Structures are given as C-alpha cells and as structure tokens.
C-alpha cells in the first residue's frame, strides 16, 4: 500500500458505466492502478470483471465515464501496444504450432526482427513450453494453452498487463512460477490488473477490488479489507461486503 503513488496512476477509471442493451453490466466504477502495482479484481463469474478488463484493453466500448491508460483516453490506438492482454478464453490458433502463434503475435506487436527469436525463446522457457513449441496447439492441454496465452501477452514487454483469470487450469507448482514472474514484473515497474475468483491468489495483490453485480463494493489492501469486514479471510470479507452474513 505504501508504494502506491496516486499521481503515477497508470490506469485511471472514473465513473465507468457499461450497458448491453438495457442491462447495466458495469455501474459507476472508479479506481486507479499505480505504477508497479498489482491490483486484483475479485468477484463471482458474471459480475462484470471480464467486461471491465476488455474495456481497459481497448477491445470494448463503454457507455459512460472515462477510462485512461498511461494518460490517454481509451480506446486509443497508440496505447494498445503498451498493454499486454491475456483473455479469459485462450485466443490461440489451434491449427498452428505454439511457436508459430508466438511469431504471429510478435509480428503484430512489432517486436523487432532481430530480437524476435531470442524473445520467443525466453518466453517459451519462462512458461516451460520450449520442448512443446513445435507441436500444434490443438494437442496442448488446457494448462499449456494458458501458459502460451501468457507468453503472448508478455511478448512486447508491456507497461500494463491485463490478465483475465490467468491461472485457471494450471497446477499449483506452475501457478507459483506465474506469481513469481508477476512479482518480478511488478518490481520492474509493470502495472498488473488481474482478475480471479481464486481467493488465495488475492493475498498476493497490493490492493483488491471486490466486484458484485457490476458494482465495485470494496477497494483496499487485503489487510484493510479483512479489518473493515472484521473477517479472518478474504473470502469471508467478500461475503460480508456482498451483504451476506458469513
């Protein structure tokens, strides 16, 4: 909490409203993510987390309010290349190899030709897919696809990382490795916005936002939230904030 400086907000969201037809999906949401901060968004499925992160990643429009990333109002074309986005569904080409997928996205992100090979090798090593790089993605397990998706999001060394449930279907050992990498990126100054509904991951975040029915019902560090709710665990706190007696 101490290392968050409001003036260095990398992601700023003010009074964001999102509607699909008449259904309000996001209702007056405001928060910021500072430089080198990991902000976790916690909430049940269908609460609007994915809609929120898509808006920040420029692939979603919004009905009201304002979303700013690195000082630019989104959606903004120039800012897109500074954001790394890992979607909830694995958006990979199943009929290509893992390596070809990375090459394609590296070209789209404009990773310089000279650096491309080294960068891809580095990421394959990081997500432990080096020996499976030449296999078709359709033969990958669910966890392997998640790992490849993460590698895609990291390819261009983005300043802002938006991760939509990155650890679903990943074994505990690899999940630890993922988090070690997230913390390392944080140290380098990368801002990370991560959604999850796994409560034990929440403890790793600098701050947590609790989302329910499209509303941000609480925001603060894990300790703060637990104190405010007079709860032992984040899960309990979440239930209290949601108006359910724990």
């Amino acid at each position: 909490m101490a290392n968050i400086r409001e003036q260095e907000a990398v992601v700023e969201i003010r009074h964001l409203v999102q509607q699909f037809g008449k259904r309000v999906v996001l209702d007056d949401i405001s928060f910021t993510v500072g430089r080198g901060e990991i902000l976790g968004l916690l909430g049940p499925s269908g609460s609007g987390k994915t809609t929120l992160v898509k808006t920040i990643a420029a692939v979603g429009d919004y009905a009201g309010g304002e979303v700013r990333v690195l000082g630019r109002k989104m959606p903004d074309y120039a800012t897109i290349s500074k954001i790394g986005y890992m979607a909830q569904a694995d958006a990979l080409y199943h009929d290509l190899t893992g390596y070809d997928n990375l090459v394609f996205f590296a070209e789209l992100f404009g990773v310089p030709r000279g650096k491309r090979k080294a960068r891809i090798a580095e990421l394959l090593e990081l997500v432990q897919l080096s020996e499976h790089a030449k296999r078709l993605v359709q033969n990958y397990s669910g966890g392997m696809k998640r790992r490849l998706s993460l590698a895609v999001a990291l390819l261009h060394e983005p300043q802002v990382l938006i991760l939509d449930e990155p650890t679903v279907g990943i074994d505990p050992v690899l999940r630890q490795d993922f988090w070690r990498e997230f913390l390392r990126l944080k140290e380098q100054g990368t801002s990370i916005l991560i959604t999850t509904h796994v409560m034990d991951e929440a403890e790793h975040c600098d701050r947590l936002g609790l989302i329910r029915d499209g509303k941000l019902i609480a925001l603060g560090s894990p300790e703060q939230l637990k104190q405010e709710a007079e709860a032992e665990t984040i899960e309990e706190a979440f239930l209290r904030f949601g108006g359910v007696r724990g």
Partner: protein
Amino acid sequence: MRTWALTKRLLKQIIRDKRSVAMLFVAPLLVLWLLSVVLTTSTTQADIDVVDLSTPFVEQLEKTDATVREVSLEEAKQDLADREADGYLQLKDGTLHIVLEGSDPAVNGAVQKAVQEASKGYAQEQAEKLKNRREQAGASSGTGMPTGVGAPNAPQVPDDRLLDGAPVSQLPLTTEVEFLHGGTDLTKMDYMAPVLIGFFIFFFVFLISGVSFLRERTGGTLERVLATPIKRFEIVLGYFFGFGVFAVLQTALVQWFTLNILDVQSVGAFGAVLVINILLATVALSLGTLLSAFARNEFQMVQFIPLVVVPQIFLSGLFDLRNMPEWLRKLSEILPLTHAADALRGVMIRGESLGDIQVSLWVLLGYCVLFLTLNILALRRYRKV
C-alpha cells in the same frame, strides 16, 4: 507489414488444412467434370427476324414456337449484334439464309427447328393449293394430268412464289446456316462453362474465406488480434491477400482444367478470362468475410449459401431469363455473378477483349471495394480505433 503477418499466418493455416485445400482445388474440378458429362439440352423459344419474306411463309413461321418480327436487313443485323434476336431469315440467290447469333446451341437449334417446321408447313400448304388448282383445271378441260400430286417439286405455277425469285419447285427449302459467333460444334457445356467456372470460384472462395473469418471471431482470436496494434483495414487486407493467393491459384487451375481437359471452347485470351475470374474471386472473398459478421457459427454461415450464392447461379444467365418477370431480370442485372458470367461469355464465346467488357469489370471491382470497406466498418463493433 502487419497485413503481411496475417497473410503469412493464413497461408500456413490453409496449407496445414488438407481438406480445405482439397475442397478449393479438387472439388470444383470434380463437379465441373460431372456437369460436362450430364449436361443435356433443354427446349428454348427463338426470336427470329425476317427480312422481305412472303406473307404465307411468315404466317407458317408464326405458327411455330418462335417470336417473329418483320424488319429490314440493317435492323436484323443490329438486332443480332445487340442480341435482341437469335437469328434472321433472308432470301439470297434463291436460297433461304438463316443467320444465327450463335452463342447458345439450344437457341441455335430452336431457330433452325422453327424454320424447318415453317418450311414443311409452307410446302404442304403450297402443294395443297397446287392440287386444288389442278383439279379445277382438270375438271374444266376434262383431262386429268398424272402428276406427283402433293409432291413439293410439282410443276411451277408462276404466281405461287415463296418470295421473289424463289420458285415453289425448290421446296422443301434448302437452308444455309451462318453463325455470327460460335458454330455448330458449340455444345451446351461450352455455353454454360463460362458461367459455371465463375460460379464455382465464387462458391468455394466465398465459403472458405467466410468460415475462416468466422472462426477468427468465434474463437476469440479476432478480439485478441484487435488487442494488438493492428489497424482494422490491415486485418481485412491480410485476409484479402491470404485467401487471394489461393483464389488466384484455384482460378487458374479450374480454368486450365475446363479449357484443356474438358475441352470447353474458348476463343478469348486465357489472360482475359483469368482477370475476370480473379476479380470475381475477390468479390466472393470480400463478401464472404463481410457476411461472416452476421453469422454466429459455421452453420449460420452455410445458411447464406441458399440466400446469397444459389440465387445468383439461377439468375446469372445459366438459364434463359428472357421470359422471366421484369423484377427478376432487374435483380439479375445487379448481381456480381451476372456481370462475371456476361464478361466470361463475351470473352470465351464471342472473343471480346477486356475493353469490350470493361463495364462488367468495373462493376465487379466496385463490389469488391464496397464489401471490403463495409467489413472494415463492421470491425468497429469490436474496436472503435
């Protein structure tokens, strides 16, 4: 640059997908070959112009299925060039001349059939008259002359002429057929092949590019790609070039197969035919990717076939539209496949150059640009910038 990345990726994907490659390259050949085997002729009504023929013969001609118009020689020639008429009849040096437009063997046949029927009817009528006259003459003189009664080569009766200078004795008429285009060896397949080549290229390119772009949407990869700094037009162009490569290869193969293996007649240049087909393929490509925006899955994409593709084949000139309702003909005139079919027929059967068919080429190009632009706009749904 990013367009090229997308193009490269598509090429890799298509080459890996053996079945789609087979569908692009083998299926059209198989179907065209089958069609060339089974094609049979259908009955057609002819539009015939007559130049200075005697009234009794014209009356006989009007008794047939044909539509008959009496015009001057200049008008007849003009009608033929404009394809208003299928052929004209004229008396030249004592023989009846039929000049045919010649592109459609079924129509050629219909004209000749009508003329034959009329000649036969006319001969019988004349013979009947002759017989009556003789009987009248014989009754008055009392001497029955033994003649081949009813035979067409009965003795000449000066007043009973088919036309100026054509004596009844020459019946049944000897006819000579001339073709403005084509010839007697033009088969139904030769007539239909230009349309069919166009159709198969349109169909397969439309389906494969549409389904592929749809998969990009439904698989979430389109959204993922839009979360990278690629411009919307770069996506559309990447698809355009990626499938364009295969469309060109497919077009060249289908065309070569039709002309050389199926021996379909073409008097036009191979290059000119290729230009038309490639232009048509680009229309199919841009339309397929555009329409995939309105389909939620592959099944819904296939539902566009009876809606978008099949009507075009019926209205593109494969079947004779001259007796169809006005609105249907108007509709056919705005369809891209109609323009491609007209252009292909112009080049392959009538030997026209690209300059002669440039209106059709511009229309196709216009459609292509229109669909590409709409597709770029349709992508705004995913990302506004």
